[in-house]
């Protein structure tokens, strides 16, 4: 019977482990097992829905914590729901209230509102330190998921503390790391399309705590973070010619890199170990990829072709580089070893493929695709297979990976004289496409790793 993909059998209980054993014991033994073995059904169709969770307001354990408790639980709820993997059950629908952290859970009440996971927490503020503890409940199995955890940090960074809690909850529910306690560096844009002013800015992943890093006197492009999240590479027209600069985020100090007269350097990216930088260098109209040793200052040419080679990105282990080249006539994606050897083409579909970025998990490459007048953000496996387009619009480009490799942020620009850039994010399943909160127009996002 294969209706609805059903496969049925009264097979042996622990089939995989015991099959050999059963065979050894012979048919009679097998018959006994078959008689007593459990009914076996295969389930292949389910639903894809956000998991309903409840985040009741955290308990304020002293008066000083009142405000923070409310705000922290809100940030956690927004983090979770913002992933698209969870749907928050509004507090107004809750039947039960949590009045103390160790209160027994009124499971029936949470089940009644179909909360499948429950985040219970409390906040205690002493002086400048906020202590947040939480526990995560699997409502329908009546079990606590993992241990309760406690985080302490200065009240001034209460949002980070909230993100940390949400990351821990996300991790337990999904089995993969979170990405909430992270930042995004980007280009903040103002002004008309033909005289757009740009400056570097950095914000929390959710748009909070925006800080501007440069003024808008020079065009700045495509900032990239180090894997430690402490330095930014970017391209600036500060000297009227595009050059690569490196900013130390803590000190806000900027140094110029790879400065050669008569050339144009752009599209830099850190090696995973932070010791070198790969970038594009243009000489006499031809653009190739180079590697710069930050300690010695020595540059090494990695590609040597009359075509455009640009937008390089390291694999997470630093052994390979993915980049785009138009050597075949149009932009396509290629991979080579970190020393420039063993070049091979990866993309093969119709249209043009650019701005490849290796996922932090190492298994996927995100890219920008242009085809038939539309732009897409997509992902493919590193051998070019299983290409999946996640978005489509007038102009999408420049993907960057969330630290957990599950979400991609990118630039979307609208068309026409009033066209503006915004940051968008999308789950790698193609679900949960949404605009990121920024004060004004924004482009060229680069997602930091999880903060320590």
């Amino acid at each position, binding site marked *: 019977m294969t209706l609805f993909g059903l496969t049925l059998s009264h097979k042996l209980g622990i089939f995989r482990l015991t099959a050999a054993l059963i065979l050894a014991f012979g048919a009679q033994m097998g018959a006994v097992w*078959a008689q007593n073995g459990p009914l076996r059904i295969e389930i292949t169709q389910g639903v894809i829905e956000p998991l309903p969770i409840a985040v009741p307001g955290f308990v304020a354990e002293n008066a000083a914590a009142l405000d923070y408790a409310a705000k922290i639980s809100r940030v956690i709820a927004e983090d979770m729901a913002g992933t698209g993997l969870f749907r928050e059950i509004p507090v107004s629908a809750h039947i039960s209230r949590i009045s103390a952290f160790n209160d027994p859970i009124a499971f029936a009440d949470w089940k009644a509102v179909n909360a499948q996971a429950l985040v219970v927490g409390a906040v205690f503020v002493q002086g400048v330190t906020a202590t947040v503890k939480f526990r995560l409940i699997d409502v329908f199995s009546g079990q606590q998921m993992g241990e309760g955890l406690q985080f302490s940090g200065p009240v001034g960074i209460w949002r980070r503390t909230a993100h940390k809690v949400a990351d821990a909850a996300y991790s337990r529910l999904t089995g993969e790391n979170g990405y909430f306690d992270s930042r995004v560096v980007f280009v903040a844009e103002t002004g008309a399309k033909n005289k757009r002013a740009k400056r570097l800015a950095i914000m929390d992943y959710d748009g909070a705590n925006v800080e501007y890093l440069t003024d808008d006197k020079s065009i700045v492009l495509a900032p990239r973070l180090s894997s430690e999240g402490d330095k930014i590479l970017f391209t600036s027209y500060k000297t009227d010619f595009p050059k690569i600069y490196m900013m130390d985020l803590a000190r806000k100090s900027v140094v110029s890199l790879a400065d050669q007269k008569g050339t144009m350097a752009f599209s830099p990216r850190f090696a995973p170990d932070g010791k070198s930088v790969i970038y594009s260098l243009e000489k006499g109209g031809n653009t190739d990829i180079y590697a710069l040793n930050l300690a010695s200052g020595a540059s090494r040419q990695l590609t040597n072709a009359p075509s455009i080679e640009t937008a390089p990105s390291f694999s997470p282990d630093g052994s390979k580089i993915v980049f785009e080249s138009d050597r075949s006539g149009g932009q396509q994606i290629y991979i080579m070893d970190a020393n420039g050897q063993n070049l091979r083409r990866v993309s093969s579909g119709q249209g043009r493929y650019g701005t490849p970025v290796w996922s932090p998990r190492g298994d996927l490459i995100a890219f920008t695709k242009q085809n038939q007048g539309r732009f897409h953000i997509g992902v493919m496996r590193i051998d070019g297979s299983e290409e999946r387009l996640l978005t489509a619009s007038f102009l999408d480009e420049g993907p960057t990976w969330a630290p957990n490799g599950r979400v991609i942020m990118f630039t979307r620009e609208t068309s026409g004289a009033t066209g503006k850039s915004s940051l968008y994010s999308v789950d790698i399943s193609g679900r949960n496409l949404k605009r990121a909160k920024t004060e004004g127009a924004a482009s060229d996002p680069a997602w930091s790793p999880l903060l320590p």
Partner: protein
Amino acid sequence: MNIGLLVSGLGHLFLLLWMFAAGFFTKIEKTPELQVTQVTILSTQEFDALNAGQPELPSTNTPDMARPAAELTPAPPPAPKARPTPVLKSEPSPTPTLELAPKLMPSPKVPEQPLVSEAPEQIKPQDAPRVAPVAAPPPPVNAAIAQDTALAVIKSPDPVPVPEVMVDSQSMAPEAATTQIITEATQTQNIPSLAPQTSAHPKPRPTVAPKPEVPPETITDLVAEALAEALTEPIPLEPEAAPSRPAVGSLTTFEMDSLRLSVQSCWNVGSLSTEALNVVVTIGLSIQKNGMPDAASIRIVAFENGSEVAARQAFEAGRRAIIRCGAKGFKLPKEKYDQWKDVEMVFNPKEMRMK
């Protein structure tokens, strides 16, 4: 197998948390102004003890609360199980306590298996019909709940349907469910109002239950039953199994379809990690005579295509499906109880994977 998995799960979880803690501690030394620390403050055993000791649990297990409380009624069916007890005992803690974690508070008073040990007291309600009678509301034994006026309203003599209605009207502007990923890029047109495909299967539970005495049946149930009746003879099962069963024993394919459909309508893979979406997990469980799954018996039998961590996520999603959709009791023929008292469900997300 299960012991091994458990040990492995323990080890992995400990390792993960240790890495967490280690990371934070080193960071404290580097940048004191950003210190965020975490410590274990409540173990799952303590948690179980905390909740197991509360009167609220038994109250939810009364027959009139049968549906929402099913997962809290782990009483084994009267007939002894072929499955050995140790398996049962090892199961209720898929997120095991980290007894090696230095920050873990000891919980000496916690009984090893609070759920199982309570089970005998809960057997009796299980034999009541799963159809909730119109009965008095459960005694408001839990102080925290009793003082909640909103709850008093909810726990009217119709405890089952009322929360459902409330859920649908207030908290659930249901998102479009889909078994197929429709991205912006794959839409034929970029029309914002283009409705995504809806779920192929009905919501796990009816949105409105006008009378608690008659739990609404899903269409698939009705169809399955009608078809089953129409057939004078059950469709023979696989030859290897059929001969060894008594004549009355074999479930019809429709009966099994019914079970499968009712579980898959609650099987939500929407929050699974991409790795967990590759895991094919076989979950074993016992079903009580009233059709309700024995929550404590739900366990991983086998898994493939993934790490233990991913398998645990896959298992938890499957377990949620079994518990949620089994809360009313699976519709299975009582006279064939021997055939379905032990079930293995293979959750294979191959067709649910992102493509």
